[in-house]
C-alpha cells in the first residue's frame, strides 16, 4: 500500500516533467540553418524562430547610432563543425566565405548597441526570423572571432 502511493507520486512527477520539457521545446525550438538552407527554403520559413550562422562581411557593416539600427551582410559558412575542420578550421572558412563574391549572402538587421566583437570575418550566430522583405531580423547576436584568439601560430617574427 505504502509503496503504491510513492510509485503513483513518482509517476505524476515524471509525467509533469516530461510535459514541461516537451511543451517548452515545442514553444521555443529554433531551427538551425545555414544561409544556403535559409535561401533555398524561400518564404516557407518566414516568421519561424531561426538560428543562423554566417561570416560577417566587414564592408557592409552600417550602424546608425541615432536609431541604434545595425545592418550587415553575412556570407554562407558550413553549419557542421566537422565540415569546418575539414576545410581548414573556422578562421580559414570565415575568410574564404567573405572574400568569395559567389557565396550566398543575406542582409541582417539588428536593433541595439553595436557588439564589440562585430567585425570583418567574425562568425555571427543570430537568432531571429526571416522577414517578408528577405532580410533576416536578428533578435540576438552572438559573435566569435577565431582569428584573434585561436590562431595556432604567430605571424612570422621579424
Amino acid at each position, binding site marked *: 500500500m505504502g*509503496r503504491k502511493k510513492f510509485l503513483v507520486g513518482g509517476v505524476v512527477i515524471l509525467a509533469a516533467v516530461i510535459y*514541461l520539457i516537451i511543451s517548452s521545446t515545442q514553444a521555443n525550438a529554433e531551427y538551425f540553418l545555414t544561409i544556403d538552407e535559409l535561401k533555398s527554403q524561400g518564404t516557407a520559413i518566414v516568421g519561424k524562430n531561426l538560428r543562423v550562422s554566417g561570416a560577417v562581411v566587414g564592408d557592409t557593416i552600417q550602424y546608425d547610432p541615432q536609431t541604434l539600427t545595425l545592418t550587415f551582410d553575412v556570407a554562407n559558412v558550413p553549419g557542421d563543425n566537422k565540415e569546418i575542420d575539414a576545410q581548414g578550421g573556422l578562421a580559414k572558412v570565415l575568410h574564404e566565405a567573405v572574400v568569395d563574391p559567389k557565396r550566398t549572402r543575406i542582409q541582417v538587421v539588428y536593433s541595439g548597441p553595436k557588439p*564589440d566583437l562585430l567585425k570583418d570575418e567574425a562568425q555571427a550566430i543570430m537568432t531571429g526570423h526571416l522577414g517578408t522583405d528577405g532580410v533576416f531580423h536578428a533578435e540576438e547576436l552572438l559573435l566569435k572571432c577565431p582569428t584573434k584568439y585561436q590562431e595556432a*601560430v604567430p605571424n612570422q617574427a621579424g
Partner: protein
Amino acid sequence: MLAEIGYGILVIAFVVALYSVGAAVYGERKQLPAVVESARRAMLLLWPLITLAAASLILLLVGNHFEVSFVYEVTSRNMPTYLKITAWWGGQAGSLVFWSWLMSAFASLVTLRKWDRDREFLPWVIVVTSITTAFFLGLVVFYENPFARYWQTPDGQVLTSMFAPLNAVAMLPPDGRGLNPLLRHPGMIIHPPMLYLGFVSFVIPYAFAIAALITGRTDDRWIRLTRRWTLWAWLFLSFGLVLGSRWAYDVLGWGGFWGWDPVEIAALMPWLTGTAFLHSVMIQEKRGLLKQWNVILIILTYALVIFGTFLTRSGVLSSVHAFAQSAIGPAFFAFIGATFITSIGLLIYRWPDLRGETELKSMLSREALFLLNNLLFMSVLVVCFWGVIFPLISELVTGQKVTVGPPFYNRATAPLFASLMLLMGIAPLSAWGKSTVQTLGRAIWKPAVAALVVTVLLDFFYTRLAIALLGFYLVALVILVTLYEYWRGAHARQKTRGENFFAAFGRLTARNPRRYGGYFVHISMMLMAVGIMGINMFQKETQGTLPVNGDLKLGEYTVKYESIAQFNAVDNRQVTRAVVGVYDNKGNYLGELHPRIDYYPDAQQNMTIPGERATMRDDLYVLLVDWQPATATGATFKIFVNPLVNWLWIGALIFALGILIAVLIPDRETERVVVTRAQPAQQSSAAD
C-alpha cells in the same frame, strides 16, 4: 631551459601518479602495507612536483618568454604582472595544469589525515584521486603541453612542439597576443579558480564512495568522512557560479547575468546533483535510506564535473566562453565513459548491500520531502541536459538541427524552482518518520498567513503582476517559516535555560550547525530568488543619442549626458569615458556615472564597461554605446533599470555565511534518529 624543466617535471609527475595507482592496487590486493604506504608517499610527492612545474610556467609567463606558445597566447608585454600570473588559468593548457595542481593538493590533504579505523579506504582513495590527477597530467603531457615552443623550419614554416624539429631554429615572437580583454577583470581572475575548487573538491567524496563500494563497507562512514569536503565543494562551486554571473553583469554589457549559455549550464549541472546529494545524504545518516541513490548522485556529480571541465575548456559548443579549442575531446569522453561505466558496474555489484534499512512510510515525512527535493533537482538537471543535447538528437532523428534558447530553460525550470521553494517552506516543519497534514498545518499556518499579508501589501505598493506575486509569496513563506522555526528554537531555550535571546540564538546555532547553517542557506536562496525575479520580470530599458546636456528618462531616473573624454590607460588601453549625471524624478542630483568603452589595441577589441548605480531597490545600468569624435551629434547610451538585482549578491554573502556555520562549527548531533511511531516535530514539542 625553464620550459624543459617544467615539461620534465610534468612527465615525472605523470609517471609518479601512475605508480601510485599501481602500487596502491598491488599493495591492497597482496596485503602489503609497505607497498600501500609507498603509494601514499608517491601521491604526496605529486603536489610538490606539480607546484614546481607550475612555478616554471609562471616564471615563463612573467618573464615574457613568448617562444613558448602558451605564453604567447595569453600574455603580452604591457599586461600587469598580476594578470600575467593569473594568465596561468587563462588558457586551456595552463588551466589543465591548474586542475591537476588543485587535485593533488586536495588528495594530499585527505591522505594526511589520521586514517585509524578507516585504513581500508586509503588505497582506493589514492587510486581514484591519482587516476584523476594522472588523466589531467596525461592531457598536458601528450595533448596540450603548456611548455611547447615555436620553431621555424628552413622553408619558413612555423611549428609548435616541445623539442626542436629537424633543422628548425627557435623562434621568439617580439610580443604576445595578450589575454582576451574580456578575461582581464577581477571577477574573471577568481571565477575560474573558484569553480575549479568546487569541481575538484567533489572528487574527494566520489573517491570515498568508490572506496566504500570496492571494500564493501557500505554503511554511511564514507559520507560522514567527506561531509565537510562536500560542503566546501558546494560553497566553492556556488561562489564560482555567482562570480561568473557578476562578471557577465559587469563586463558583457547586456544588462543581465545569466544567459543559459551551454558553458553556464555545464557548471550548473554538477551543482544540481551536488545540491541533491547534500540533502539526500542526511536521509542516509538519519534514517539509513537512499544508500543506492546517494552513490548514484556522487557518481553523476563526478562525471558532470569532468564533463564541465571539458566543456569550459574545449570550445566544443558555440558560446561566449569559446576561448579555447582543441582536440582533447575524445580523451575526455573516453575518460568520462570509462570512469562512469566502472563506477556503475561497482554500484550494481554492491546493489544488494545498499538496500535501505527501513522503508519510507509517510508521504509527508521529512525523508519523503527530501526525496521530492531530490527528484526536483534531478528534473532541473534533465531539463538542462535535454537543452544541451537536443540539437544533437534532433539532427540525428530529423536531419534538421534544432536548438533551444533561454526561453526554453526559463519556461521549463520556473515551475520546478517554484516547487523547490514551496518545499523549502514545508520540509523544515516536517518530522522524521511521519508527519500528517494536521501536524504540518498546525506548524505552517501562522507563517503562511503572514506571507499572505506581505503579498497583499506588495500587491498594493509594488506590483500587480500575478506571477511575480506568486513568487514573492513563496519567498515570504520560506523566509517566515525559517525565521519562525529559528525563533521557536531560541525562544524555547530562553524559557527553559533562562538565557537571554541572543545567547539562546547563538547556542542553538552552535548545537546544530548543520540545521541552522542550512536555514541561513535557505534564506539566502530566497534573497537570490528576489534578485532573479526582479531582473527577469521588471527590467526596463531605453536607448538614445544625446547631445551634451541632453537627457534620457527611465523609470524614476533621469540620466544627463555631461561630458566625454578619451585617454590612454597605463596598460595601453584607449579609454573613452563619458560622464553622466543621475537625477531622480523630483530633479534631485544623485551622483554621476562613468560608462566607458575600452579599446585594446593588442587584441583589436572593444570592451563596453557599464556605469552602475546600485541600491537595494534597483540598479541603474548605463552603457556608452557609441561616440564618434568626428561628428558632434553626441553620444549614444543604452540604459537599463534592473530592480532588486542586488539582493542576489547579498544573498550570495549570506549563503557563504550559512555554509561556513555548517562547515566550521563541529557537529554534535551525530547520532541517528530512529523514529518509528508518529511524533510531532521535536522542535515544536519543546516550544509548546
